[in-house]
């Protein structure tokens, strides 16, 4: 009897915790599954951007050789009409997805950020326009990694 009651309490606590945690997660949209993915394929799956088509209308402006992996400037511009979203991934980082931007009316599909890169890697950009996904990559060589301490 005591064991049964304990089990019930545990189940109740689990339900309560799940119920309480949900509203916090809903406050700000942050795709935890995509950001926790350890391969860019999984990250893209979580973002719902599978079946990408290679495109040279995505311009990635970044140094060929980054001396300091802790600060690698990556500039991305999509020339695809109606681009609504751009995702930036560093393929060989522990968690490849670096950032994802959603553009609404009034913003141009352009973004520049500084990213950390653990080692030499391809940088992959996925742009979404009209429900289709386009991709482009650029290799950046890193001489000093920037992900460790």
């Amino acid at each position, binding site marked *: 009897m005591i064991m049964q009651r304990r089990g019930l309490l545990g189940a109740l606590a689990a339900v309560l915790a799940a119920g309480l945690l949900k509203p916090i997660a809903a406050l700000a949209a942050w795709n935890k599954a995509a*950001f926790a993915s350890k391969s860019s394929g999984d990250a893209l799956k979580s973002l719902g951007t599978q079946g990408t088509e290679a495109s040279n209308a995505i311009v990635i402006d970044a140094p060929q050789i980054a001396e300091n992996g802790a600060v690698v400037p990556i500039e991305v511009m999509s020339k695809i009409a109606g681009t609504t979203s751009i995702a930036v991934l560093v393929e060989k*980082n522990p968690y490849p997805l670096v*950032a994802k*931007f959603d553009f609404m009316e009034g913003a141009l599909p352009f973004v*520049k950020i500084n990213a950390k890169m653990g080692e030499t890697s391809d940088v992959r950009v996925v742009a979404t326009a009209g429900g289709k996904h386009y991709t482009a990559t650029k290799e950046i060589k890193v001489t000093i990694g920037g992900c460790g301490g």
Partner: protein
Amino acid sequence: MAGPMKMRATLTGGYTDVRVLMSHPMATEQQTKGKPHFIQNLTVKVNGKTVLEGEISQAVSRNPVFSFRLQGGTKGDKIEVSWLDNKGDTNKTETAVA
């Protein structure tokens, strides 16, 4: 925790170029032994209307610099950028297009 933010918005040919500098450690899992501290959400509003939303990870560099472009724009347009990190800290800054 939330350090100062700096923002500059300049009207150039046909678009407004905006640069934002945020003070944030952007500490990764490896650097903190499993307790990362980083900005997760960015929101850009122009004259009160959201035009750009970003989700970023711990792989963005410390004290992030974030640049974006707005279609057209006129002098005096109010731009507001805010961020929210994984510990619930938040900060925002506002500037007018120059």
